[in-house]
């Protein structure tokens, strides 16, 4: 985020200084003579670029930029997959398909949608646009949210990665699958019980195919819009994750690995701020060898459901009022679910 501010400031600086004669906060009461203005116009941009460049090349800033780009680059293909899929659902799949697949009663539709998450191979960035277009096609929001939460955690790619990262511990894979499905379903039901439509941004979605329009054009327009929209929020989330990544050294972890309760909460918090993609978080969890299995399970259940880049993506798609409430509730539910199921299975 600091980087943006800097870039914005840099681009604004020139006109400001060139017109600086009328500003009172700079302390200039008299108009500056022209030669000075010209001199400033000639030197200030260079000086700003030079010192800005020097600052950008300090080791901390370089690490920040690398991590920020890494999160963005890693997530972009999956975001594209998700937006393409959501564009396709929007333009090509008639709404009645969903009403036929899902049970009519929302209470039953929620767990079915959670299990249906198995079919979306990818990480959490792909599931936000897809869930959005599901809502646009008339799927009840509770079921769409259950899908949104479970898809990144229970698809075959992620489960295989978990099995590879924890060799000889099939219990971990089973516990992850069950705890994620449970948390996703509970969140769906919670939405049925307490959720309010006004938390969702009004007109969440340009809905579906319009008669007379070209489906292909609609697909392309929806795709471009969704990608640019979600991509911006992805960058925002990546910046936040990079800031935490660089500002909080990993050695802080060791202080928390002793107490079982603190370590569960701490790894849940770590999953939120690190924003590791769900296809990789099993390896990260495996490397946190000082922590109990339940704490590591919590890391893998919370990570795909709540993290900084996901909150940013959700805020962009569904609105801020929704993203904050939903993420907070999800974090609590996911921690409880992994403690209960992990405690029973691990």
């Amino acid at each position, binding site marked *: 985020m600091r980087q943006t501010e800097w870039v914005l400031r840099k681009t604004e600086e020139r006109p400001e200084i060139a017109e600086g004669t009328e500003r009172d906060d700079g302390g200039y009461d008299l108009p500056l003579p022209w030669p000075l203005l010209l001199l400033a116009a000639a030197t200030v941009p260079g000086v700003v670029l030079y010192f800005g460049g020097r600052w950008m090349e300090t080791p901390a800033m370089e690490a920040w930029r690398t991590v920020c780009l*890494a999160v963005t680059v890693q997530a972009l293909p999956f975001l594209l997959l998700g937006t393409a899929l959501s564009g396709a659902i929007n333009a090509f799949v008639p709404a009645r398909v969903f009403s036929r697949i899902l049970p009519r009663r929302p209470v039953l539709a929620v767990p079915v949608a959670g299990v249906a998450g198995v079919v979306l191979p990818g990480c959490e960035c792909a599931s936000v646009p897809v869930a959005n277009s599901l809502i646009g096609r008339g799927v009840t929001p509770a079921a769409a949210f259950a899908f949104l939460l479970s898809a990144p955690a229970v698809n075959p790619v992620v489960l295989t990665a978990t099995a590879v990262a924890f060799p000889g511990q099939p219990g971990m894979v089973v516990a992850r699958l069950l705890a994620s499905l449970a948390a996703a379903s509970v969140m769906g039901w919670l939405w049925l019980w307490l959720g309010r439509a006004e938390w969702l941004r009004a007109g969440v979605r340009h809905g579906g195919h319009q008669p007379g329009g070209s489906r292909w054009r609609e697909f392309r327009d929806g795709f471009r819009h969704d990608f640019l929209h979600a991509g911006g929020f992805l960058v925002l989330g990546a910046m936040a994750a990079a800031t935490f990544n660089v500002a909080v*050294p990993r050695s802080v972890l060791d202080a928390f690995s002793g107490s079982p309760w603190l370590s569960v909460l701490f790894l849940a918090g770590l999953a939120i701020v*690190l924003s590791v993609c769900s296809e990789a978080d099993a390896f990260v969890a*495996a490397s946190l060898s000082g922590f109990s299995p339940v704490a590591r399970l919590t890391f893998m259940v919370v990570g795909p459901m709540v993290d900084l880049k996901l909150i940013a993506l959700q805020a*962009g798609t569904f609105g801020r009022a929704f993203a904050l409430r939903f993420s907070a509730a999800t974090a609590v539910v996911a921690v409880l679910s992994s403690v209960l199921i992990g405690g029973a299975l691990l």
Partner: protein
Amino acid sequence: MRRPLQTVLLLLSGAGLLRIALFGDLYLRYVKEGMRPLLIGSGVLLILLGLTDAVSSLRRREDGGHTGHGDGGHGHQHSSVPRPAWLLFLPALSLLLYAPPALGAYTASREPAEVAVTHEDDFDPLPATSPLPITLSDFTRRVRQDRTGAIGGRTVRMTGFVTSAGQGGGWFLTRIMISCCAADARSVKVRVHGAPAPAADTWVTVTGAWHPGGTLGTGSAPAALDARSVEKTAEPVNAYTDALPPPALGR
């Protein structure tokens, strides 16, 4: 954001991805090798999308007049892209013009040593070659987990980059490994004794023997090396792996 600018942004993002994945190895600074086809695919897709966009808006302008306006109702819904979309210019331009380097000594120095080493119970006998090429993780495992103590007294060769040990002086031979992208970097470090520290982030191959201390084969043994020689080497293309040292030249 205006429509033409959106098109430019799509093209720039696609070009940035293609630049790091298709026209070079820069993507290895951020993600794993396996991501390459996905990144190239995404780049091509974004550029195609940008081009069809440009073509269709040009065509619309040529048609001019009422058809363009009639379309406006449709365009409106989608062209309201929110402000954060501007942020996409940062990674796009950064990938094209100002790609930051791979993580190095700064990141490694802030991590606890040896987090990245997994546990192993069965150790095969070491090959007889001397000096023995070995990875930093393998060396650490041998020193701290192999109860047969086979690594003691052997001459080994390892490659990594230099991380200074901070206020105590001395330095570590270091590797950073990633499981997915650079955000989940973990490091493995081996302390080097008996040689002055080269500049941080220099890639070197160190030949030497285990630096005795504690009980070999248990957690009390330090992952440390008495260096006999330290040679500079080129930075490997894929820096985020714990690879064996390159074959020695002129031996």
